[in-house]
């Protein structure tokens, strides 16, 4: 198979943006200057950031185990190496704010109140999962907790979040919206149309572009002729900033400033977070298209948990016991969530007919299914297919 040089062949290495967060990004016009917002985090909050990142990683590792046991139905999507970008950005929101996660944003959802048991139930297609088995993986939301479920069609959540934040503006609510898009999704028409509309309306919206180097197998250089995605902001007349997405405090800082700015009524900010997708698009993807050594380099030199652990212990002087206590708590929570999810029932087949409209809330079964509780005596019979030569 032909191997094309990805951006990592030259340039895309860890640390490419390290150190730019304060100097480079703050100087962007329209973005407030001042002391780093993260300097005001309490000790408890500093530990919370670690907790959410650890929970994200460990929960995904548990899902990998379940996947290997074939208990996960469908694909498994990882955010390994991107936990800081998800957690640090969501942490900059208040409870009343709304975010729209994408497939690498398990961490953002957890910060917003998603529960590990819900995630596992979703992946196992259980009947008491948040979507009752209708949608897969982390495709779900809860307006009360302030997150809206994504659909697969990339870019579509940008205009939706424009509308969410437009409603905040129309009602005079001091609330902010945050929408994530991948580097690949910035190529969609929906991204452009939604962002343009939000910008012209000065909606209280923060757009986080997670630049993890790849869209499925496609490296950034094949996705766009722009080298820095933050520059796309120019086309919308909004500030664009770039930060180190694997430094959770830098992510928090840059997002918090954009959130504050949105809350002050100053409109949309586009944030490009530099990170790296260490796993394939999903578990099945063997990443044959990635230049040799690139993944290992990011793992070794720029793991967001390792980096933050160093900050916690060396700079902020937390001791190892406090870290170990969090790790133990995370493990207990995930164990309990796994047990609960495994014990959950699959959905009732006829639940498929409920809830397509507000009124009627239930549609009638097709006439030949009247009284049939389950559609099939035997499930689809794969073995039987293709054996006919008639």
């Amino acid at each position, binding site marked *: 198979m032909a191997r094309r040089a990805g951006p990592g062949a030259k340039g895309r290495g860890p640390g490419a943006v390290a150190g730019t967060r304060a100097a480079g990004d703050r100087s962007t016009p329209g973005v407030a200057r001042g002391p780093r917002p993260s300097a005001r985090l309490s000790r408890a909050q500093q530990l919370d950031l670690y907790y959410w990142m650890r929970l994200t990683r460990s929960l995904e590792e548990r899902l990998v185990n379940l996947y290997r046991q074939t208990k996960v139905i469908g694909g498994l999507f990882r955010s390994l190496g991107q936990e800081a970008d998800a957690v640090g950005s969501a942490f900059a929101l208040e409870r009343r704010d709304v975010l729209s996660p994408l497939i690498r944003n398990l961490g953002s959802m957890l910060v917003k109140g998603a529960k590990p048991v819900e995630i596992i139930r979703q992946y196992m297609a259980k009947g008491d999962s948040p979507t009752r088995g209708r949608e897969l993986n982390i495709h779900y939301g809860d307006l009360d907790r302030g997150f809206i479920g994504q659909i697969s069609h990339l870019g579509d959540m940008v205009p939706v979040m424009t509308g969410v934040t437009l409603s905040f503006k129309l009602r005079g609510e001091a609330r902010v919206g945050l929408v994530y898009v991948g580097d690949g999704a910035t190529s969609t028409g929906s991204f452009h149309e939604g962002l343009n509309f939000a910008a012209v309306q000065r909606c209280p919206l923060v757009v986080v572009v997670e630049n993890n180097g790849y869209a*499925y197998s496609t490296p950034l250089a094949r996705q766009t002729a722009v080298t820095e995605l933050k520059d796309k902001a120019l086309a919308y007349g909004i500030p664009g900033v770039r930060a180190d997405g694997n430094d959770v405090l830098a992510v928090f800082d840059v997002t918090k400033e954009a959130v504050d700015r949105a809350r002050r009524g100053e409109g949309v900010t586009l944030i490009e977070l530099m990170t790296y997708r260490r796993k394939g698009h999903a578990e099945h993807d063997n990443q044959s298209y990635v230049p040799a050594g690139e993944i290992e380099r990011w793992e070794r030199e720029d793991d967001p948990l390792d980096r933050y652990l160093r900050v916690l212990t060396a700079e902020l002087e937390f001791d190892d016991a406090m870290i170990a206590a969090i790790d133990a708590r995370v493990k207990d929570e995930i164990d309990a969530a796994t047990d609960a999810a495994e014990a959950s029932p699959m959905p009732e087949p006829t639940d498929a007919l409920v809830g397509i409209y507000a009124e009627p809330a239930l549609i009638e079964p097709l006439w030949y299914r009247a009284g049939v509780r389950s559609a*099939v005596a035997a499930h689809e019979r794969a073995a039987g*297919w293709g054996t006919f030569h008639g």
Partner: protein
Amino acid sequence: MAETTYLEAIRQALFEEMERDESVFILGEDIGAYGGAFKVTDGLLDRFGESRVIDTPISEAGFVGAAAGAAHMGMRPVVEMQFIDFISCAYDMLTNYVATSRYRAMLPCPIVVRGPSGGYVRGGPFHSQNPEAAFLHTPGLKIVYPATASDAKGLLKAAIRDDDPVLFFEHKYLYRRIKEDLPGGDHVVPIGKARVAREGKDLSIITYAATVWKALEAAEQLEKEDGLSVEILDLRSLLPMDDAAIVETVRKTNRVMVVHEDTRTGGVAGEVAARINEQAFEWLDAPILRVTAADVPLPYSPPLEDYVLPQTTDIVTVARKLAAY
């Protein structure tokens, strides 16, 4: 000769057409080095190079529109949708620009848009769609949806050579599950012709794509358990539709049901029933019955997906009712 899968048949068609005609090129997301999400285009980059195997940005409207422009200039672009569900992002281009271009501007637009379609795979609402009915209503497009490896190959070759835009739906459940010996030589299956998948005399099942196989299963069961002789007509082409073949099977068996995986309301079955009404009403001994998905987005969890999609048991139940009418 080794048997060829449905997926491999599609790859062969692309390969052979690119060999045959230099103006054929392919474009889509991750189709080059990666070989496509389902590996349909595996190896094509190595053989034909980056100028004829183009990885696109995630911009379905953009690359379908670009395919149209290239087609005007004499090229023969074949566009891959990573999943056919994303064809909706190019709906405007396809229905407004592409479909009307010959009629409104005398501009030929010979593009093919192909991609993995269909359910029974636990793909959920956005990786299982059957969008044929959304385009059936658009004059100017052609639509094919093969059920066999041989038809997949032959129809794709015909689609690439066709002077009008063709939507080519591939059933992902069939990709690696069915195989057969393919005819040798330049195997081209004409667009617009249905195929009798099984001869019978008591009733007819008109269907296409994956449900052809469900219908075949049901027919075996009905023959064994009820002594019924079931004819199965695989439409293969939905637009244009083979009215002559439809009328012929109605005249032969006088009892017809239409089966498809897509949802019911506004689906292909309604169109088939209307055509029978107009062209062969007096040959019917019973009302035309439909077996389809229920009118809901396709849910992901196995018990739900199985409940919503048509199953072999449904076809058997409805066929018995039809036979007894």
